[in-house]
């Protein structure tokens, strides 16, 4: 579920507010170079802004520069992410589709950071948020300014039609809040992303994240508690809720992100579910095989 990503990003931006100085005043401070690098990359984003500095959906690069800083620090120094396959990214519109894990959506954050820092030209990976996010004060604004949007199919289609890059996790909470026994086994994929790709003639870029499962291994998911609290999931991990809010911090695992070959699909986007799910399985297989390879090549969870 993407909103965990949002909560993480909100926390990130709150943490960042102390650091949200211009890059010049950061000179000499730790992360000054990273801040400058991020800022340069954001300036290079191929996004057209209006005379007031916003894109049509409310994206504001200046907000992204400060709010992505914590993500960038996590990416480089905490998760020490290694990303490969960026040279295979197609130009123009694309739908990034990958595995979801780790209780809190740091995976979304890290993939978005990789798309900014590791690609040339940099791309803004736009997330599709839950409807109720729009009702939360500040968060709804932050989300828009960072380039994300409420996840309605028509907004997503419109973004793709305008050659944007949209990030989705078709497993949703089923993937993110699964228990560790199911680690790296892809859960059921929703079909919506494939219909949108067909409708807008968008290549799908599968990606695999290795590391996210170990950042917060799930012991159980108390669905009844979740229902009571009106939350989509209530995970139990080694540290949460045992250590309180501190227990939500991920373990310092190393992230490995692999972007696969872009996949082009053709067909009627209003086709029967059977026909669509056949195509979805191709994407799923591609992600699963990248995961298998990534796990086989990994020598250490933390190093």
């Amino acid at each position: 579920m993407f909103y965990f990503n949002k909560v993480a990003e909100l926390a990130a931006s709150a943490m960042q507010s102390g650091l949200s100085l211009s890059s010049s005043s950061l000179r000499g401070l730790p992360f000054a170079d990273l801040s400058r690098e991020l800022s340069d990359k954001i300036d290079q984003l191929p996004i057209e802004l209006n005379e007031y500095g916003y894109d049509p959906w409310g994206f504001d690069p200046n907000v992204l520069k400060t709010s992505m800083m914590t993500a960038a620090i996590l990416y480089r120094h905490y998760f020490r992410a290694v990303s490969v396959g960026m040279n295979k990214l197609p130009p123009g519109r694309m739908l990034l589709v990958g595995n979801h894990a780790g209780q809190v959506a740091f995976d979304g954050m890290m993939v978005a950071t990789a798309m900014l820092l590791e690609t040339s030209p940099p791309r803004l990976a736009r997330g599709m948020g839950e409807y109720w996010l729009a009702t939360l004060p500040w968060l709804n604004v932050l989300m828009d300014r960072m380039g994300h949007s409420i996840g309605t199919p028509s907004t997503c289609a419109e973004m793709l039609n305008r050659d944007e890059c949209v990030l989705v996790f078709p497993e949703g909470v089923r993937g993110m809040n699964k228990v560790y026994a199911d680690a790296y086994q892809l859960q059921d994929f929703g079909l919506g992303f494939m219909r949108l790709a067909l409708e807008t003639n968008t290549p799908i870029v599968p990606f695999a994240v290795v590391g996210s499962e170990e950042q917060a291994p799930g012991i159980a998911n108390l669905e009844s508690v979740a229902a009571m609290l009106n939350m989509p999931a209530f995970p139990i991990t080694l540290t949460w809720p045992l250590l309180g809010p501190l227990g939500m911090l991920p373990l310092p695992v190393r992230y490995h992100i692999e972007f696969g070959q872009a996949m082009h699909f053709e067909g009627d986007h209003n086709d029967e579910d059977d026909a669509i799910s056949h195509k979805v399985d191709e994407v799923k297989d591609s992600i699963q095989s990248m995961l298998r390879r990534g796990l086989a090549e990994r020598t250490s969870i933390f190093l």
Partner: protein
Amino acid sequence: MKRLLITGISGGQGRLLAKRLSEGWQITGVDRVPWEGAPEYVDVKTLDLRKKKFEDVLRKNRPDAVVHLAFVRHFRGSNELRHEVNVGGTRRLLNSCARYGVKQVVVLSSAYVYGALPENPMYMDEDGPLNVARNFPDIRDLAEVEGLVSSFLWKYPEISTSILRPVNTLGYYVHSAIGSYLGLDIVPTVTGFNPMLQFIHEEDVCEALALAIEKQLRGVFNVAGPGAVPLKTAIHEIGRRRLSVPEPLAHLIIRELFRFRVYDFPPAAMDFIKYPCTVDGSRFVEATGFKPLFSLRDVFASMA
């Protein structure tokens, strides 16, 4: 020369449109309020759409085209009056149009009919549901008017009927709810909300109406302006001071101020400064080649 009837001609939009179409058309206008110093090229009749005499105008005049602008868009009067003028007036007008051989009808609705909801997609097209009545009963008459006009559109295929739904309209002549909101000395906003708002200049709306007439448009069309900015940017550009009010408090204050008619906006209008209500105007552009002349800066400058 072909004959054109404009209802609500004494309003800002009516005056602009009369001027815009004065060369190719012989214009008659009706309004409840007189147009002092109306130019010679318009024949203004001061009468109420809801009265029998209005039908006489159509019978005698036999207009080729009708532009319907006579709507109560503010909340200063009672809901009953609003409903009677907007819905009752439209019904009467449409009946008369069918009876007296009008060939073309253009109705000025607004993008507000989609409603401002948290789950709204950005840039909604004309096929989207008209949700305004869901949370904003005070303006459900807008949706009812649209319902009347759409069924008229299907019932009389020989009459070119079109509905235009422009976004937030600002300018010197037109009095709009958004205009009076942004014209307040201190503009209240809801803490933690800052939705994207689309704006259009009144002259561009006038141009859109004229194009709908000239191109004999048929169907429902959003009319989008030069673009969208966050609400707070608009307030800043217009040069107003802003007051951020936490939501529960804002609701209470607005309700009380509205109750005592200090403030012209019902509490439900608050959704429009919290959630997006943006529309895709490409269908109208494709049908008419419409291009707004006024940029966002021009639109805001017209309010400063």
